[in-house]
């Protein structure tokens, strides 16, 4: 866990340095180089054993600037909620405590930070790219049962490689469609009714528009 945190911190530092270098490469500010991405997001947590049912309850926003040919850097923020109903069962919640109930589990994640993209092919209508997002993530896991509910929340580091493409149907690149697939990892550590979650893996895709 400590090693992952160190790697994550170094990655974020490297991203910041890269942003600095790239900004100096195209120091002249031009609003036409600014881009906004608004995506609908489908996300599936995995390896947590908690609320890992795929859902489309999320959005992703990016504000990017083309700092050099093919290079975009900027800010991103997204949010997502995944739910999972777990049927009635007897849970051992401590060596002496047992609880029989059904559960409605809810995992809410809000990552935000820096984003960088490299355009693989600068076509007139088609722009595939690879990207990396790094930052921090807020996570809250809530378990509803009976007439009660309990939750735990935590902050953690966040990193997410991404691959995608932009489609520009018009003659200009004033607007287009955005499609991306991603993997993400957050170092958040939370406690739930039945177990501890140490690190959150996610995979999903995004569909949206780019201006």
């Amino acid at each position, binding site marked *: 866990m400590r090693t992952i945190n160190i790697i994550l911190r170094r990655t974020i530092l490297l991203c910041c340095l890269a942003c600095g270098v790239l900004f100096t490469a195209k120091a002249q500010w031009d609003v036409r180089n600014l881009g*906004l991405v*608004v995506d609908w997001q489908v996300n599936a947590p995995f390896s947590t054993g908690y609320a890992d049912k795929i*859902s489309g*309850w999320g*959005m992703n*926003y990016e504000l990017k600037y083309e700092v050099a040919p093919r290079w975009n850097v900027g800010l991103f923020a997204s*949010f997502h*909620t995944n*739910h999972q*109903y777990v049927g*009635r069962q*007897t849970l051992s919640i*401590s*060596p*002496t*405590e*047992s*609880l*029989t*109930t*059904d*559960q*409605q*589990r*809810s995992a*809410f994640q*809000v990552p935000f930070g820096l984003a960088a993209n490299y355009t693989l092919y600068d076509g007139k209508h088609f722009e595939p790219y690879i990207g990396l997002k790094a930052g921090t993530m807020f996570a809250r896991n809530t378990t*509803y*049962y*009976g*007439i*009660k509910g309990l939750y735990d929340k935590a902050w953690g580091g966040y990193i997410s490689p991404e691959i995608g493409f932009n489609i520009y149907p018009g003659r200009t690149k*004033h*607007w287009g469609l955005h499609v991306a697939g991603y993997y993400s990892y957050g170092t958040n550590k939370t406690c739930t009714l039945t177990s501890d979650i140490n690190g959150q893996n996610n995979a999903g895709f995004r569909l949206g*528009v780019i*201006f």
Partner: protein
Amino acid sequence: MKKLLFYICLPLLAVSCEKEPDMTELDADLAVYTDYDSSVDFGSYKTYFLPDSILEAGEYKATYWKDENAMKIIKAVETNMNQRGYTRITDPNEKDNADIGIQLSYLNESYQIVSGGYFGGWWDYGYWGPWWGGWYYPYPITYSYNTNTLIMEMVDLTADQEGKNIPVVWYASASGAQYSGMYNLQLLVNSVNQAYKQSEYINCNK
């Protein structure tokens, strides 16, 4: 054109983030919780005393629930205890000779909520259109809901009485929403059986 599309999508930025889960998926059954003192050998007890009433915790003073429905709940406790090999002492004058005592309590609570502001989450945020963020009431609203809880406590009557405090060696509670302003007798009886089912250490037949 770019500017126009940007403003069209701008409301999406204000969409409320968290989606509430569908709480109607949860069943109406009671959540049954048990805990016990792990230093106690439940096999060392032989007899128990079980009162023929259930204490009903009230707002000002407790009353005793003694009708035929209460008897069905008490009977479920007796049946489980007898199946585990314990012998019930029924004469109140003989209760000093019992190894353990079982006290049953029932708590009926009503929550009255007077509030403006966020309520529920039963309707999806996007139902009336993605440009709306969530729900709020510009005037105070009132709603209420009822819950009920059955508590079972097993006390050790053989413990050292110098301290004058009787140790509770087993605790069980069954709680849930109350519908139509009435308890559900079958759910309460089932919860007694479930409490014993998940407490296999309560056994004199070992």
